[in-house]
């Protein structure tokens, strides 16, 4: 016979607010208990950490090349070599890794990762010149990074002040200086600039988004490497640990400046100076998550879309082609940005993920799909970290005892989950391990 619970004990067990009636109530209650949208299972932890590692290596290339393009290639009208970042950029010390870093939270080295350099030298085919690797398309798919940048440029208006600044007179004056300095001694391009100034301005804006995304990923690469190292050392107990590591990381670098400098020879032109006060969290991370995880755009080539039949949303905010909604199978076609990323990650999978994929579905034959779904799981975890970080920054602790505060947290979580009510959302699918 069990003893009746004492009044004190039953009081502490009574929830302060009633359960959620939302369709995703189970996930909301998990978030309220400090969990992630992704269920806490050992396999989920293994999958997401493994894929963070595989993502971090190409990301180490993406951020370096994005900054190389924004700062050096700039408005080159024939940028045939934009995917060949200079040695200077491959050696560029990461601001958040290496001993020179002022904020030494993550261990990694400051230069390009050794696995990346090895792949750049050998590729899938073997040792040959960079140009041959490039022409054979045996290389890092930088087009993926550019697709993400374009999603941010195109969607705009997703919070932060970055895009408003690009419309300002100050920015236009800075861009004008950069254009004139870059094309100094090139009367043909300067004449073209006189004729079509807006075309050039638009290109500079795009370059500013290259810088924005490069500075964003410069932080994420060492974070993901660190997570992989911690997991290898047995450091994460579950998915919530991995999520909380990301939440702390988001706060740690929230104030990192977002800027755009252009170098013409030795001259540095500050198109967006650090003194504008733009921050990693508001001007890069949050717009990135919105543009890339949620919105992006329907991928041309997989299907024809009829806008008059409302197959393309009227409102940009309703776009839902991001990884949180993607059907990974048709996406797995040539030339589609997520496929390019999957192929990049395939080269750097840790052995435990290679072994996992061999055991399931069609083994090696559909490994891109399997790792794409792993990536989807991992991005639901990153999105959970962003949601928890926002809750932490703007709302109340999970263990708050004021019911009004808990209700405010509840409304916030429910509003976030409303975005996964549309049928394309994969939130339901990732609740089960059978989704591969």
């Amino acid at each position, binding site marked *: 016979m069990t003893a009746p619970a004492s009044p004190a004990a039953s009081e502490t067990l009574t929830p302060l607010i009633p359960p959620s009636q939302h369709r995703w109530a189970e996930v909301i209650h998990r978030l309220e208990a400090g969990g992630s949208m992704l269920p806490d299972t050992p396999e989920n932890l293994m999958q997401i950490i493994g894929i963070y590692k595989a993502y971090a290596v190409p990301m180490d290339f993406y951020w370096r090349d994005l900054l190389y393009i924004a700062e050096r290639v700039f408005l080159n009208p024939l940028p045939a070599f934009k995917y060949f970042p200079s040695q200077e950029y491959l050696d560029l010390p990461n601001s958040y890794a290496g001993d020179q870093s002022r904020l030494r939270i993550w261990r990694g080295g400051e230069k390009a990762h050794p696995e990346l350099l090895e792949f750049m030298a050998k590729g899938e085919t073997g040792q040959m010149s960079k140009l041959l690797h490039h022409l054979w398309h045996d290389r890092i798919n930088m087009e993926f990074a550019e697709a993400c940048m374009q999603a941010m440029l195109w969607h705009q208006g997703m919070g932060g002040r970055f895009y408003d600044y690009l419309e300002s007179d100050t920015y236009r004056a800075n861009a004008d200086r950069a254009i004139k300095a870059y094309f100094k001694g090139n009367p043909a391009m300067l004449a073209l600039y006189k004729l079509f100034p807006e075309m050039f301005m638009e290109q500079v804006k795009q370059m500013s988004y290259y810088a924005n995304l490069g500075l964003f990923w410069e932080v994420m690469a060492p974070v993901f490497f660190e997570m992989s190292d911690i997991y290898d050392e047995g450091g994460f107990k579950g998915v919530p640990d991995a999520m909380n590591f990301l939440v702390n990381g988001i706060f740690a670098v929230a104030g990192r400046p977002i800027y755009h400098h252009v170098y013409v020879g030795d001259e540095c032109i500050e198109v967006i100076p650090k003194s504008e006060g733009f921050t990693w969290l508001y001007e890069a991370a949050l717009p990135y998550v919105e543009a890339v995880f949620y919105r992006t755009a329907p991928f041309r080539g997989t299907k024809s879309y009829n806008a008059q039949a409302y197959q393309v949303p009227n409102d940009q905010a309703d776009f839902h082609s991001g990884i949180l909604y993607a059907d990974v199978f048709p996406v797995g076609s040539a030339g589609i940005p997520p496929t390019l990323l999957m192929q990049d990650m395939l080269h750097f999978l840790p052995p435990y993920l290679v072994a996992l994929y061999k055991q399931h579905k069609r083994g090696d034959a559909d490994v891109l799909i399997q790792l794409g779904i792993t990536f989807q799981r991992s991005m639901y975890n990153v999105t959970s970290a962003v949601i928890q970080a926002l809750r932490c*920054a703007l709302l109340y602790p999970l263990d708050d005892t004021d019911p009004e505060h808990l209700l405010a947290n509840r409304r916030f979580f429910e509003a976030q989950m409303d975005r996964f009510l549309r049928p394309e959302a994969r939130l339901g699918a990732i609740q089960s391990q059978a989704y591969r």
Partner: protein
Amino acid sequence: MANIIETAKGAGCFSTLLTAVEVAGLTAALESPGPFTVFAPVDEAFAALPPGTVQTLVDNTPQLARILKYHVLAGAYSRAQLIDQPEWASLEGAPVAIRRAEPFEVKNATVLTADIACDNGIVHVINRVILPG
């Protein structure tokens, strides 16, 4: 009466805030006639932020100044005035929401002591660093 900076120094629980204001180069502004309304987070509020948060901001003064300016309104407003309007424009540009009158809450922070009158404005002591968004 003392100005906002002198008042904060005298209180003894704002050492992080005062250091941040100094690093961001806002001390002179807060000593000027103003007037200002300042939501001043106590030291524990900064200490509660995850490791690295404050350091990154201190290393990058324009970004630090932006967060600090979010804690300041132009004009001196008492608690009674603040609770009459749901949102107030901060010097940072983003609105600061007044969420509750009793207990007095500014965004997700609770006001520990309201209406500290200074020469050049009013200080309300809060228990959390507030962030735009």
